């Protein structure tokens, strides 16, 4: 098997607060090949965003990566110094954030923010950096880029700003882009456009993508593989077809059943009972146990990720039987 582009092993990121230790990410394993698109799915508070930020060492205090490894092309980023990380950020691994209203500095022009991103990694003249920024804007579908470079973020709509953020992420043709719910704050029509663009650009440039989201519909349209997170752990992983068509973890099944579907018209939507547990006070063993209709005595011990192969696994003692879903046929 070839060396994967990114391999996350037992990543643990904890927040040491006065109220106690918040184990936001508590043993996450991921694997991503070159050019692959991975959907990282979970509810709010499942640790999916913190996982994305931990990969690049961007977690703000009091948060801290306390264990595990992030192997990027064989190099462990968890132990890497700030200087080494800085050389990777933006150039090899880029990031796009959730709220495009907040990610661009309001008092600096778009041009300034793009030129500095170019020049952070390459010794090029201001004029050349400007030219590259111009081309990057044009590539994400922004008209009259020269004029746009001189504008400030508040003169842009949300969708436009997210396009700018994507253009910045693509400036150095990175190997990997971590996109943290980048379409959540946008209108549905804009969301579809952005999804399409990002998919196209990643395929063109061979960039791998981790798309963090709570929206299974987005993932099914975009990703090759999916990792479902619950309470700081990956509970199931597989290809999109496997996860959508044949979920094995009860939580994944619950997520799928709470999405409206044409096949179940007229049938009331099912929701997962209870709510996401407080990360300060996780139940012993499987964190989903209190909300699960399949839980048994075994569930007080945390199950390991098991499955057919590394990329098709689930973390459950009583997995849903293969092809068990009523509407699967």
């Amino acid at each position, binding site marked *: 098997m070839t060396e994967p582009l990114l391999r996350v092993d037992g990543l643990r990121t904890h927040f040491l607060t006065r109220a106690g230790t918040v184990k936001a990410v508590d043993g996450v394993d991921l694997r991503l090949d070159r050019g692959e698109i991975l959907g990282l799915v979970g509810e709010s508070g499942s640790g999916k965003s913190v996982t994305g930020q931990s990969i690049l060492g961007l977690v703000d205090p009091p948060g801290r990566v306390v264990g595990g490894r992030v192997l990027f092309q064989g190099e462990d980023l968890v132990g890497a110094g700030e200087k080494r990380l800085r050389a990777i950020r933006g150039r090899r691994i880029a990031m796009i954030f959730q*709220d495009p209203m907040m990610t661009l500095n*309001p008092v600096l022009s778009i041009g300034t923010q793009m030129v500095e991103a170019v020049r*952070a990694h390459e010794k090029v003249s201001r004029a050349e950096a400007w030219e590259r920024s111009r081309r990057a804007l044009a590539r994400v579908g922004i008209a009259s880029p020269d004029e746009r470079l001189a504008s400030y973020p508040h003169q842009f709509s949300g969708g436009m700003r997210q396009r700018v953020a994507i253009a910045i992420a693509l400036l150095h043709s990175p190997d990997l882009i971590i996109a943290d719910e980048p379409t959540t704050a946008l209108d549905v029509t804009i969301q579809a456009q952005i999804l399409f663009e990002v998919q196209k650009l990643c395929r063109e440039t061979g960039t791998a993508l981790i798309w963090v989201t709570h929206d299974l519909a987005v993932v099914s349209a975009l990703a090759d593989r999916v990792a479902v997170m619950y309470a700081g752990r990956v509970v199931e992983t597989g290809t999109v077809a496997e996860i959508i068509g044949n979920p094995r973890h009860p939580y994944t099944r619950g997520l799928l059943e709470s999405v409206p579907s044409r096949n179940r018209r007229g049938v009331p939507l099912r929701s997962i009972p209870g709510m996401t547990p407080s990360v300060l006070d996780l139940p012993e063993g499987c964190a989903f146990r209190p909300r699960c209709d399949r839980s048994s005595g075994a569930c007080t011990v945390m199950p390991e990720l098991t499955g057919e192969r590394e990329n098709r696994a689930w973390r459950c003692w009583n997995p849903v039987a293969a092809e068990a879903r009523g509407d699967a046929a």
Partner: protein
Amino acid sequence: MLVFILRRLAQSAVVVVAMSVLVFAGIFAIGNPIDVLISPEADEIERAAAIARLGLDKPMHEQFIRFVDSALGGDLGTSFVHGVPALGLVLQRFPATLELALCAMLVAVVLGIPLGLWAGLKPDSLAGRVIMTGSILGFSLPTFWVGMMLIMAFAVTLGWLPAGGRGETASLLGVQWSFLTADGLAHLILPAVNLALFKLSLVIRLARAGTREVALQDYVKFARAKGLAPARIVGVHILKNIMIPVVTVLGLELGSVIAFSVVTESVFAWPGMGKLLIDSILQLDRPVVIAYLLVTVLLFVVINLIVDLVYSVLDPRIRLGGGRA
């Protein structure tokens, strides 16, 4: 932009007129200057002559009309005490105060912003705590006491710096300045530090509060995700965002430093406008007091206008509205 400036100037004119009425009425309430100016032995005829000469025999509204009439011609009256035009007297003292105030502001900004940034970026570090504790002292110790302590320490005990006066001055643009000579600069240090202390604390606290807020914003994280160097993130992304409140307060404070450096000027015998004001109030020298206050009002107006203009440079979201805005 031009419309904005013109409108602001019109508003300022109204402020100046209202202010002159208030000042004129207020100064009448303080006391009768005749009691101070004329020796008790003067007889009734001499008294009447003096009152008529100073124009104090007329009722208040007539005096005010006469004052406005000559003020429009640039004459704010003649000092009762010194017998020279009051405006000239104030303006002559103005450079000394301006010099002192600007030096104090310079100290406050040059030290305050970096210290505030540091304390904001590392709020739990020892240095951060020391800076914040120091700023509380700067806030709470009275200016006159600190001034005297500075003189005690650096002038009397150590003998490093002079205790008072402006020292040697040199001429630039026809005005005498202390900062152009080594001796003048030595005289300037203690009063400038004394005057700066309060503003310094203010700038530190503002910069720290701003930094703590801005450092947590997504755009700072995004800047880090771009791989920018820390110097660029702090020096451009954070600094430019925290400058807006700092500039506001500094603008207002510059006015108040110029106008009310009275205490420091008195402690260090600095021959500026503040000292002139104190002397003039004691002697009920009405024209000088009025001239001083009008100059001060104008200063505030001009500084506020400049602050508004600086805003629009710092924050592109602020557009200085014209007529239809």
